[in-house]
């Protein structure tokens, strides 16, 4: 019973007014917390950890690369959830939050790709390799672009929310498909190549690879990036709600003559 009442209480924030009231209260604290964890994690990582014996100081790219890569996929997942909420329960805040999250996810994907290239150059001797993980991130980036372009192209807000939500659902299925297809495709090309192992270094299985010296600041950076995302989405969703309101008010003014 308590869980269900708690969950019901969560739906309260689907009311734009309540949502704005909440975010206005917590946003200043969130900004400060984000700044502290992000700066703390990055400073700790960049200046207070030793260089790797093999990779030298390039290992420190991990503090930006891994959190952004982690966010790139989880933002899409969050958009999927909010799209479902919009399609099922028709809460405007949900649709607007998905819209607000998309550019953040796009930038995170781009950061992951760029830092990966900067890291890959000294480590693998190449800026780009058609490694499965790299490729699937590039495909994810294209999905983000399409999603945002569709939002921009449609004038009516509710229609845009409906269409982008369906696109997000269908896109999710195809993104997962592409991910596995890409794994299949590359193994077909590079039988037993070393790229896959090298990909593991840049990738998500950090716990086996990274020693604790690097792991603790990395965790802090992950937290910082996560907080940054939450803060930005709250902020941007608030902006979207206000923009909607202004539009509605102006339409009412015009109607009144």
């Amino acid at each position, binding site marked *: 019973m308590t869980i269900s009442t708690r969950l019901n209480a969560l739906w309260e924030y689907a009311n734009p007014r309540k949502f704005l009231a909440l975010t206005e209260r917590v946003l200043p604290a969130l900004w400060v917390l984000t700044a502290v964890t992000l700066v703390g994690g990055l400073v700790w990582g960049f200046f207070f950890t030793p260089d790797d014996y093999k990779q030298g100081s390039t290992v420190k790219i991990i503090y930006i690369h891994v959190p952004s890569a982690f966010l790139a996929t989880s933002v899409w997942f969050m958009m999927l959830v909010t799209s479902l909420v919009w399609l099922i329960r028709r809460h405007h805040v949900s649709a607007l939050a998905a819209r607000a999250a998309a550019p953040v996810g796009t930038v995170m994907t781009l950061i992951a790709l760029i830092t990966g290239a900067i890291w890959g150059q000294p480590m693998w001797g190449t800026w780009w390799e058609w490694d499965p993980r790299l490729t699937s991130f590039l*495909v994810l980036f294209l999905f983000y672009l399409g999603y945002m372009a569709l939002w921009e192209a449609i004038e009516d807000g509710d229609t845009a929310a409906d269409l982008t939500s369906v696109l997000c659902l269908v896109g999710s299925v195809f993104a997962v498909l*592409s991910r596995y297809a890409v794994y*299949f495709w590359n193994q077909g090309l590079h039988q037993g190549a070393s790229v896959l192992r090298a990909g593991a270094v840049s990738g998500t299985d950090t716990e086996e690879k990274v020693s604790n010296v690097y792991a603790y600041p990395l965790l802090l950076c992950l937290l910082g990036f996560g907080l940054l995302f939450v803060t930005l989405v709250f902020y941007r969703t608030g902006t979207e709600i206000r923009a909607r309101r202004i539009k509605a008010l102006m339409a009412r003014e015009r109607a009144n003559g």
Partner: protein
Amino acid sequence: MIALLKRDLVLAFRAGGGFGLGLAFFLIVTVLVPFSVGPQSALLSSIAPGVLWLGALLACLLSLDRLLALDWEDGTLDLLATAPLPLESVVTMKALAHWLTTGLPLVLAAPVLGVLLNLPAPGFVWLVVSLLLGTPALSVVGTFGAALTVGLKRGGLLLSLLVLPLYVPTLIFGAEVARRGAAGMEVATPLLMLAGITAAAIALLPFASAAVLRVNLR
């Protein structure tokens, strides 16, 4: 349903329907490839399966914006939406008509263009098989994209941006079948995956297409 299919086919075959445009595009792309990469036959035969698949995919893409837009403009879609026929069947028939007028001719033309690109002999069969299995998925996915963008003034470019990422898995497995076939390797796994993607797309995507079409028609 049959009547709708017949109507779409007749419209496509008559002048102005754009039938053959995709085919001509496919031909031109294939002819331009040797100009851009050079005439070495070894190089051409190694890239031939991929080039033919990409050409077929782009030719499919080219004809997508006519798929629903014409019916949208003259109001046919509104009538179809209020007709007793479910919208899911309508979009399925639209996809089928698109495949019959675009996908099937591409499949039939591909071996001829394969000769131009010096495709290795064992590759012909698998090229045709993979295109035959893969192009229906391209049509169905394309119909979804067309339904998404049907109400937009300048939907053409956006349509490409939306549909191309959705084509990735089909392209990967389809081209893989053709490539492995040309190299004389085992093709069963990618072939099954390709067939699976096509079957799932045909089974599920019409519902998504009909849903977005309803939103656009509202």
